């Protein structure tokens, strides 16, 4: 009798087990072209890594989708085609993603860099501020004029955090370092990025960092005989002499994890914000232009970050007006870091306040 029962139970359980493990059909929505050599390129590398997993049946993408209302149509389109994991990779897709997700409760949605979660909409991002801080240390050591430049896309927390971490990193090794910021108000326009970089070079900046999707800033610095940091992925070819390093994304780490959870049926919508210890962000290889003692210094700090013994926003931190925002001995709480809308002391630039 027991044997029969066990056989029956196994018979019932078997298809259930198969049912619980679903094949993953993922669709990625990109804001730029996959050949941008920057943000979208880095995401696409992650997609390719995810596609290698045996249970990922399909990992497609749609590129150059404008942010805003039109994005909703595109996201709805892939949801209707039966994709069960939809990943939208730009801040501006936040509302369209949430809106479409209401109609597809069984589909897992992941939105990059936003702050709105729903039962089937998770958000994810990485603490790129950590490698930004490390790159700031390099800049602070390499600079001779003590003026660093930063070509920045939009005045949103994601970008502001990076600028602040970069400035604090530089000041941690060089108290005189200041960071000048120029906003381009575009993620991707090589011409404007180049002009912005040149305008910073003309006001004494000798190390440039950037939060843009093209390597135009690096070329401007190289041409002027100055130094530059990349972003998104390693970009040594654009600055044979002046390229120092780049804070880089390894999205594949996260995408593989998400696909695995969807496959096993354990995926839950959350607000994931992974740090350097997971490998989602890191500092790319440092070039020969970085002195050896600086390399050692940065490597040691990176180890502290991975071990969790050093936080990139550790007090005392003052804002531009000189007011203490993080007291001595405290670290900036995650939720405050996520909505950071001010510059720290030593950053020269203005933030036009955005209203919701």
């Amino acid at each position: 009798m027991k044997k029969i029962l066990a056989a029956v139970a196994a018979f019932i359980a078997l298809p259930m087990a198969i049912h619980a493990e679903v094949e993953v059909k993922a669709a990625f929505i990109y804001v730029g072209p996959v050949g941008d050599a920057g943000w979208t390129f880095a995401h696409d590398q992650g997609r390719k890594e995810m596609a290698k997993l045996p249970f990922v049946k399909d990992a497609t993408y749609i590129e150059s989708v404008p942010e805003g209302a039109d994005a909703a149509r595109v996201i709805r389109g892939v949801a209707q085609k039966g994709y069960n994991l939809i990943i939208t990779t730009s801040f501006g897709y936040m509302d369209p993603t949430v809106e479409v997700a209401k109609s597809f409760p069984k589909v897992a949605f992941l939105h990059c860099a936003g702050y709105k979660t729903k039962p089937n909409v998770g958000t994810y991002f990485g603490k790129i501020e950590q490698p930004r801080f490390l790159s700031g240390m390099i800049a602070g050591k390499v600079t001779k004029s003590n003026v660093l430049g930063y070509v920045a896309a939009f005045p949103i927390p994601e970008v502001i955090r990076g600028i602040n971490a970069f400035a604090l990193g530089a000041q941690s090794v060089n108290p005189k370092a200041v960071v000048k910021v120029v906003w381009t108000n575009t993620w991707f326009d090589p011409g404007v990025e180049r002009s912005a970089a040149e305008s910073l070079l003309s006001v004494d900046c000798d190390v440039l960092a950037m939060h843009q999707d093209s390597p135009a800033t690096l070329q401007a610095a190289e041409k002027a005989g100055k130094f530059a940091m990349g972003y998104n992925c390693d970009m040594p070819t654009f600055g044979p002499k002046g390229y120092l390093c780049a804070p880089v994304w390894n999205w594949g780490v996260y995408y593989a994890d998400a696909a695995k959870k969807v496959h096993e049926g354990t995926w839950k919508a959350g607000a994931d914000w992974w740090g350097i210890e997971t490998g989602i962000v890191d500092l790319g290889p440092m070039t020969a232009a970085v002195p050896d003692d600086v390399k050692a210094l940065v490597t040691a700090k990176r180890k502290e970050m991975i071990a969790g013994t050093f936080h990139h926003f550790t007090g005392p931190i003052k804002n531009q007006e000189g007011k203490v925002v993080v007291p001595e001995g405290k670290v900036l709480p995650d939720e405050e870091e996520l909505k950071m809308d001010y510059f720290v002391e030593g950053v020269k630039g203005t933030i036009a306040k955005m209203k919701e």
Partner: protein
Amino acid sequence: MIDLIETIFDTTIRAGTPILFGTLGAIICERSGVINLGVEGLMLIGALAGFAVTSMTGSFTAGVLAAIFFTMIAGMLHALITVYLKGNQIVSGLALAMLGVGVSALFGRSFVGKGLDGLSRIEIPLLSKIPIFGAMFRQDILVYLSVILVVLIALFFSRTRWGLYLRTVGENPGAADTSGIPVTRYRFWAVALGAGISGIGGAYMSLAYTPFWVENMTAGRGWIAVSLVIFSMWSAPRALFGAYLFGGINAAQLQLQAHGTSVSPYLLTMLPYLFTIGVLIWSTRRLEKGASNEPASLGLPYDREDRK
């Protein structure tokens, strides 16, 4: 202060030059009576062709010639549809714009992530020492070419027989036909040549201004060129003025930020577009006063059988 103005002027020229090439090409095309909305696509094809050939051969001349060659081929496609098959010029132009984006992305994959040194600047003795305007004489060969083209195109339309014929074709193809001007041939070559010149604008981006290749790298400059054709009222010198004004506003807003002005960056970024709207109002008012230079048969396919 002089340094600041000189830097702004230098950036102005470099930011304005790709738009200038795009506009000049479109002017030649539209003077013959054919609208070309495909400038963005042409510039992208030019950018890729220029970059690909230069990075393979090491020769900038070969790159620029390749840009002209491939964009002329694309232009001939537009000419075939609009001039010979008498298709809708708007639709064909939009298709050309999209085709250029797609084709350049497809064939450009293997060139992503590579860089070039970029065209070097040629200083013209004495002239480059003039304060402020000296910036004009410390540019690369393509910038000089663009200015020479402005003069040549202006002279072509006002001083040469072919230029007058071409204008006649754009104004009144029926009359041109009657007087023995081969209307279709003129239109075909004006579209092709115009496309080639627009293509140099793309090559300027990928060989001099931002010497690498990425998809969509012209980022809308082709569309600005299309609107500058109307602003310039189909005149080459005014196109130069418009392109530099557009480049200048952009250069100035970035430079002011670097100098730490507290003007809202949103306001500064709005300026080029406010300017465009202002210019459109201004030029429409001029049109009302009858100062239009618009080729009278712009957008109309010519068919000898339908001649009135």
